[in-house]
């Protein structure tokens, strides 16, 4: 009796030491854990009663998947690997076909108090076989006696709740099965997501145009990843990168909006707009498009009137205006004539100069001639009350972005 008591004490001591070590290691692991290792708690089982070959036995076990644990991310797949081994593996190993396994899970929340449903899964010992899950598909080699059980749509977590799972296995054995002791183990598996997000800039044609500082740029991107963690878009320039604001498009799944007014410190050139998405597992993907920044105003060439030439009645005006990038805004081209009185150009407001008044036509429109591809106008000097004298001619034109050029 005394020996038994001592043995029991030693056993309790060993268990206590082991538990303490395990707890310390667990705490250390939790404190430093940044990996994707999941943890299950409150494990019970496996419970299985002895059975006869050729019959179906039911085994069960249970565990909690606590989503509060930092190790346990959402959307972890539900994958079991069941391994059945013979205690005399040398002489009577388990072969494929010796067992058939199927099962289901009863899931509870709130400390196992509230049932939230049943989830059935299939088990397969086919060699090889592919685990299918939205996180990724993985082909695995399957040893004799091993079954992979999973539900492609099944997850370990249940929304915002800690899930408590009771797992029931139906194990059907072959009548020719060697009668003896068998070991049964169940391992929970997770898939590491190696799938990169899918990133598609949807309206790439939108970038066929030019932009400038002050332009409002907005575009949509389709980003697909079940574990999407973050996403962003930037304009990459040699001097500086410019970020876009972002938001999910309301009412649309996987569509994200990026928008930004281009700041005035951007330089001219063709630059890459890079959209990047990264998931919880560090997989990332990008899509890109070129954004063209045009800060150069049109070039204005005066073809007529000629410098110093004398005109009477009709003053022919012809301007050749070009803009290699965004193009000339044809409605923006204007000219004016200002009288030069006493060597002074009539002010823009046309107010009198000293004791003299002066003529200022103000900015006048000039039409684009499709034939000559120049801006032309035959100005009737009488109509504009242009008396004999010297006039200062100037012109202005904008490209379609509003980059403004003056001819003075």
């Amino acid at each position, binding site marked *: 009796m005394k020996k038994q008591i001592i043995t029991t004490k030693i056993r309790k001591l060993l*268990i206590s030491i*082991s*538990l303490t070590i*395990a*707890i310390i*290691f*667990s705490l250390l*692991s939790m404190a430093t854990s940044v*990996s*994707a*290792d*999941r*943890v*299950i708690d409150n*494990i*019970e*089982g*496996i*419970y*299985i*009663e*002895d*059975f*006869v*070959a*050729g*019959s179906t*036995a039911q*085994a069960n*076990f249970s*565990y909690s998947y606590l989503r509060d644990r930092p190790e346990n991310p959402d959307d972890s797949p539900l994958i079991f*690997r069941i391994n059945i081994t013979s*205690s005399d593996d040398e002489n*009577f190993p388990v*072969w494929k076909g010796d067992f058939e396994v199927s099962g289901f899970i009863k899931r509870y929340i709130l400390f196992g108090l509230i049932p939230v449903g049943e989830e059935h899964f299939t088990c397969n010992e086919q060699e090889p076989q592919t*685990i299918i899950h939205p996180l*990724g598909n*993985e082909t*695995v080699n399957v040893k004799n006696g091993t079954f992979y059980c999973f539900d492609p749509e099944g997850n370990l977590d249940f929304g915002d709740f800690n899930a408590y799972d009771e797992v029931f296995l139906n194990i059907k*054995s*072959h*009548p*020719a*099965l*060697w*009668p*003896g*002791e*068998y*070991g*049964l*183990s*169940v*391992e*929970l*598996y*997770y*898939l*590491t997501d*190696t799938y990169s997000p899918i990133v598609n800039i949807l309206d790439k044609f939108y970038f066929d145009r030019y932009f400038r500082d002050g332009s409002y740029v907005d575009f949509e991107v389709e980003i697909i990843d079940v574990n999407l963690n973050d996403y962003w878009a930037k304009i990459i320039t040699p001097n500086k990168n410019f970020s876009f604001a972002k938001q999910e498009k309301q009412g649309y799944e996987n569509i994200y909006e990026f928008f930004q007014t281009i700041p005035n410190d951007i330089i001219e050139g063709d630059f890459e707009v890079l959209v990047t998405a990264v998931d919880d597992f560090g997989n990332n993907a990008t899509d890109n498009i070129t954004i063209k920044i045009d800060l150069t105003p049109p070039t204005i060439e005066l073809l007529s009137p000629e410098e110093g030439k004398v005109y009477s009645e009709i003053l022919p005006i012809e301007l050749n205006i070009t803009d290699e990038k965004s193009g000339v805004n044809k409605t923006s081209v204007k000219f004016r004539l200002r009288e030069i009185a006493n060597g002074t150009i009539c002010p823009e407001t046309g107010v009198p100069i000293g004791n003299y008044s002066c003529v200022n036509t103000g900015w006048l429109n000039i039409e684009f001639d499709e034939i000559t591809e120049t801006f032309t106008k035959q100005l009737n000097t009488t109509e504009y009350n242009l008396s004999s004298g010297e006039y200062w001619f100037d012109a202005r034109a904008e490209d379609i972005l509003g980059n403004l050029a003056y001819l003075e």
Partner: protein
Amino acid sequence: MKKKIIVIGIIISVLLIGIVSASLLDFFGKITGSVEVKGPVFYAAPGKVLLVNEEPSTYATYEARDGNAIVFWTEENLGGIDFNYIPKVDLYIRAKVNNATPSKPLELIFGYSDTSGIMIDICSLNMDISTEELDDYYISCDGLSIPQDVDEFYYKMQGKGSQDIEYEISTENTKVEIIGVVE
């Protein structure tokens, strides 16, 4: 059982610490148990059927004179399964004989037919029936070879006495148990 769970808990905790995500598919928890699998039991049932692991709820009696055998067959074709051991079996029978003095031999044969229909004995022994009222008898029997290509099992009883000896067999408690492996 409680001790086992505690030990398992410790193993799992230690395993959880050591595993680092390295591959696409990785495990993070292990739950273990063990189970004793016994050999199948074949029950004689009315209709001369041999039920596998299913004890019948009704019984029937059959009479046999010498030269006439009573054979119980499994209903389901197993399709040619292979054993990987030589079975050691216990043969049970509930029987009587019309003249039990001296006791009369009744041959008990447990065997199978393969997928080509050939009947192969796993083991056969003579059981002396020594009662004129139904009584339970059993005998252990070592198989001779590893059953291969098994399609159906049978349990056969055949009288070995003279022509005027009549045996009566009840399906109650008449069964074959595979109890282990012939070493």
